[in-house]
């Protein structure tokens, strides 16, 4: 039987073998502010094997009883479409917006970065922070804590530069997003 090697099997467990290009996508969700909503969204990702790269959630409109969840995920275009459709099925989800596909989408993230060092490295850390408009929020004789906000790629770049200068700890909020222009979601 092994002599007659067959092509790789295809079943529902091996979807779209021809499409392997993965991309990152950011979904902004307007949801009912009810207990368990976050679990519904996160549980959906876990149950269907989707990745969560970052997640933010907070109440945004007390009167309308809504919260906003921003979730960054990765997948092929086909998987991302499926994620959007599945999210739309959750009864507590009022709207799903694919920020990545929206040319008017703005994405921002905030990070707190602890850098430890002395001498020239310490001076260089402060100089790089200035270039990135990162604000020192705490300092000791041998450390800084910087607060930086911006596009996720800018924060990544900042971290690359801080690593050799003594990066010891990092805390990121995950991505937030909003649409440019006058219209609300």
């Amino acid at each position, binding site marked *: 039987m*092994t002599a007659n090697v067959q092509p790789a*099997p295809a079943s529902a*467990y091996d979807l779209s073998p021809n499409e392997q290009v993965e991309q990152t996508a950011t979904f902004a969700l307007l949801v009912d502010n009810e207990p*368990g909503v976050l679990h519904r969204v996160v549980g959906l990702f876990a149950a269907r094997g989707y990745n969560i790269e970052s997640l933010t959630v907070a109440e945004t409109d007390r009167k309308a009883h809504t919260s906003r969840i921003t979730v960054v995920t990765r997948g092929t275009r086909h998987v991302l479409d499926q994620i959007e*459709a599945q999210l739309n099925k959750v009864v507590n*989800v009022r*709207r799903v917006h694919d920020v990545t596909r929206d040319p008017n989408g703005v994405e921002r993230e905030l990070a707190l970065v602890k850098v430890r060092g002395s001498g020239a490295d310490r001076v260089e850390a402060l100089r790089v922070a200035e270039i990135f408009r990162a604000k020192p929020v705490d300092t000791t004789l041998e450390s800084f804590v910087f607060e930086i906000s911006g596009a996720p790629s800018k924060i990544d770049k900042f971290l690359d530069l801080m690593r050799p200068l003594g990066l010891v700890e990092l805390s990121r909020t995950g991505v937030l997003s909003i649409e440019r222009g006058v219209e609300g979601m």
Partner: protein
Amino acid sequence: MTAHQTIESAAPAQTNDRAMTGAEIVVRGLVDQGVEVLFGYPGGAVLPIYDALFHEPRLQHILVRHEQGATHAAEGYARSSGKPGVVLVTSGPGATNAITGIMDALMDSIPMVVITGQVPTHLIGTDAFQEADTVGMTRSCTKHNYLVKDVRDLPKIIHEAFKIATTGRPGPVLIDIPKDVQFAKGEYYGPTEIASTHAYAPKIKGDANRIADAARMIAQARRPIFYTGGGVINAGPKASQALREFAALTGAPVTSTLMGLGAFPAADPAWLGMLGMHGTFEANNAMHDCDVMICVGARFDDRVTGRLDAFSPGSKKIHIDIDASSINKNVRVDLPIVGDAGSVLEDLIVAWKAGGHKANKAALSDWWAQIDVWRARQCLNYRGSETAIKPQYAIERLYALTKDKDVYITTEVGQHQMWAAQFFRFEEPNRWMTSGGLGTMGYGLPAAIGVQLAHPGSLVIDIAGEASIQMCIQELSTAIQFDLPVKIFILNNERMGMVRQWQQLLHGERYSHSYSDSLPDFVKLAEAYGAVGIRCDNPGDLDAKIQEMIACDRPVVFECLVEKDENCLPMIPSGKAHNEMIMDDIEDIGNVIGEDGAGLV
């Protein structure tokens, strides 16, 4: 008013009329939602609701023997009547036992409302007696669920639950009610007095432009086929009617999934039989070779598609579904239409006529000629026997002797289920109840009980296997208590037949734990419960004994001893395409599936 008042209906809504306990709100809400029957099992955390039920003559409560039975009975009731099934169980084990049936309802899109008791609010999170995180556990097996923390939310939640369960793609909705909320006083509001706060709004009407495009595509097709599913049945009898009408206009053949059987009449010449793993040769080959596929209310399940990269390679696909997430999930389609199957089919008929479309008669006659070649293969043939009852023969005779009656069929899961799907023929929707998506052994008997309640005068038969039936055999006691004359037709081969078949095909005939060697005496078992037991072990007696079963006005357990090692064929082996079916004349069945196919399910 006492706490245990009989709840008046249709009384003018006055302020003092509205005041009642949470338990009474539940009962009144069910009555106002048109519920007549509920399936349940009492326990500590639902006692207040049971107390309110005690005084409510309009609700018939069916006491099951296990909560799984309650959920399957509710499914059978819902599937055969089009009304939602309602379940009432207690906290902790009551809820966990119900989960299998809730998941089953989710997979097969059955409208169901499950009410679970919960420990009092102040005990939640303390690991109290019979506490379980019911909403947490059921989030992924319900369409939606609620934990009611305030009696003021209760009326809204009850009415909303029914709306969500029965509209759009139907499914189970669970309401978890802590005991203190059941006792708390609140105000009741009827279904029309409360506005839902959710954004939930399923799309019923399909896009008109796409419907016009679809009509054009179908008219231009040379080898069209309808591939229909449970969605047509869920969309109500009008959808089945529209399907029949539209199929006749287009002259296209019709096949269906397991869940869709009955939406299109089996007696119609355009009917090809079921498709998929154990579907017919003609249905699967027609799916493989078609040029336009019209999928209505089906979801390209892996049991239907077989090998995905060889699934109907040359066709343009139209997919009509109320659930947008079913579209482009497994198979990419060319023309998606989101909407209710009935509404879209009716619009398609209008668009077909408005567009002046005519079926391509010449092309269709070639297509039908090809289909006749496939039909001539006689894929459901099996080797008959004078001495042993062939399981296929048993179903054929059961069909022949009941087809002129008002008959409803339920099944368990396994070979008998596939044989029933192949050999029993359905002319109308809602006549066939089976666990398709989840494949739950133990479904058939409680489902039959639910069907019998919805159709008291009808003949309800659970086609079962001796292994499956034992998973919910306790519900026989329910059938006796409520005088429900369901018939359990067991094809007893002393094997978990489908498991054995896969072990033969895929695992070198190593029959690991797939047989039972201490089966009960089913006739005595029936008698112990108070039912009638009939045994048949030779083909010559079969007709007379089936007649005896039909004539009996009590629950019957019919033990049909069948050929032990029969395989369910035809079959698309796992990892193969629609046009690579194996049939009864296969010589070397142990070597059909390669090692790669063995990894699939």
